[in-house]
């Protein structure tokens, strides 16, 4: 139970951390100054949530663990984010579509987490849900704008959607940890979330005049620590300084 709760916390925390890290790469390079700011805002919220979750994880570990030790000093196989958030940013279309697919999931996920029997997760969900609601609106609006914009933007959005689809299945796959913590009322039932997600995604894609890809084979493994080749580079950059001076404070 204890180990399971820790891994569950890290799954949520790493989703927020790695997505925040990826979005941070855009800062200063966005297509419009206003949208550079908007995307940085989402990155900031994700990193803020990551901090709360890493603090909680550090407390569960006990000893001299800190949020930074949790965030920066694990090897790749101990990161538990879903694969979707570690993928390369690609163009603005891919970043937006990834954000939409993830935000929509995250919105229903955190809405359900508000009822968690784990008080700390519940509290974190309360703090995060308002931000996440805004993210989901923002990225849905942008998906519609790109899908129903020009021919080029439609094509780019559709390509991104097709490419990203196989990485969404993992969001909803329940493993032993999900099941055990669901039985305790701590975890979220991902099967329920899938129904809500499907409905919302269909609605937005229809407004965006985009075609929903077929549900084929889905990639998995990130939650369990088996990652794509992208994460290693993200971590090399993110961890460089803390690894270099592990005893230093900053």
């Amino acid at each position, binding site marked *: 139970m204890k180990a399971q709760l820790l891994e569950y916390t890290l799954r949520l925390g790493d989703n927020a*951390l790695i997505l925040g*890290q990826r979005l*941070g*790469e855009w*800062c*200063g*390079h*966005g*297509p*419009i*100054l*206003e*949208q*550079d*700011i908007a995307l*940085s*805002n989402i*990155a*900031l919220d994700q*990193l*803020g949530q*990551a*901090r709360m979750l*890493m603090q909680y994880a550090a407390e569960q570990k006990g000893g001299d663990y800190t*949020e*930074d030790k949790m*965030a*920066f000093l694990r090897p790749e196989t101990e990161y538990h984010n879903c694969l979707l958030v570690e993928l390369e940013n690609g*163009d*603005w*279309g891919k970043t937006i579509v990834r954000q939409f697919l993830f935000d929509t999931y995250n919105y229903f996920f955190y809405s359900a987490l508000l009822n968690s029997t784990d008080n700390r997760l519940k509290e974190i969900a309360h703090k995060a849900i308002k931000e996440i609601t805004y993210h989901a609106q923002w990225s849905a609006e942008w998906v*519609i*704008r*790109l899908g*129903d*914009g*020009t021919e*080029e*933007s439609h094509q*780019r959005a559709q390509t991104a959607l097709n490419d990203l689809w196989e990485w969404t299945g993992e969001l909803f796959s329940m493993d032993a940890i999900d099941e055990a913590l669901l039985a305790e009322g701590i975890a979220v039932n991902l099967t329920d979330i899938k129904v809500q997600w499907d409905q919302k995604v269909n609605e937005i894609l229809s407004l965006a005049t985009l075609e929903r890809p077929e549900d084929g084979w889905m990639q998995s493994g990130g939650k369990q620590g088996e990652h794509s080749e992208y994460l290693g580079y993200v971590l090399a*950059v*993110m961890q*460089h*300084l*803390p690894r270099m*001076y592990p*005893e*230093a*404070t*900053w």
Partner: protein
Amino acid sequence: MTKEMNLEERFQAYVDGENKVEPKDWMPEKYRKTLIRQISQHAHSEVVGMLPEANWITRAPSLRRKVALLAKVQDEAGHGLYLYSAAETLGADRMDMVDDLLTGKAKYSSIFNYPTPTWADIGAIGWLVDGAAIANQVMLCRTSYGPYSRAMVRICKEESFHQRQGYEILMTLAQGTPEQKQMAQDALNRWWWPSLMMFGPTDDNSPNSAQSMKWKIKRKSNDELRQEFIDKTIPQAEYLGLTVPDPDLKWNEERGHYDFGTIDWAEFYQVIKGNGKCNKQRLRARQEAHAKGEWVREAANAYAEKQAARKAKEGSAA
């Protein structure tokens, strides 16, 4: 001609009376042009200034620092927006201004053409570069053009916060391991002189300053601002326990100011002329962001037009 003269005289009297000029007021064409140039350069500096710091967002050594840095760079984007808006009140077009930046026609503060190879540079930029910017901006809070003055008041508040953050980063390093302290000292060595150059040429080499002072666009000379900055900054460096890389620096009891060494203006002009380590890199980063954003901006416009047309149709149908 006489009427124009009268207008100019009245304008000068108005400004001399410490009144703010507003967008709809009459103003000399040269006043307008000077302001557009200055405000747009200032806006460009905020936008280009995002890059050297954004270079460390993915590598910030703690979550707290990562969040603070990202928020800071985001603030700079916001400052860019305020300033483009202020310039637009003078009839300038944002797209034209951005084009001038991207084609190299417009300038931006050359301080941003220095690289940020280490984390300590993030501290040094906050402390020294923002510090120098604030000295200038505090003065500009009282500039004669209303919208510019008001933008500066907003910006100054945020900048002071950034400066404290930067100083705090260096404080942590200076009190940290020997390697961290060395990192802080190296950064001070690299940023000290460029920061002093931010105030521009010495007064005897600054031909346009007099008119700007007369119009109360500027209210202090380059050398005055530079001296203020040095006087304020030296005790802060001492408190950090770091050494300012200027052997000629010493307190002059008589003047009530610090004396300081000769600035290497040759370097300054090289960097301004485009020969800084990062000039090409910075401009290309902006050009690429703009080029890669073209289809996004087109999509946003196309969608907005479609939506407007749909609304109009609904309206006429109702």
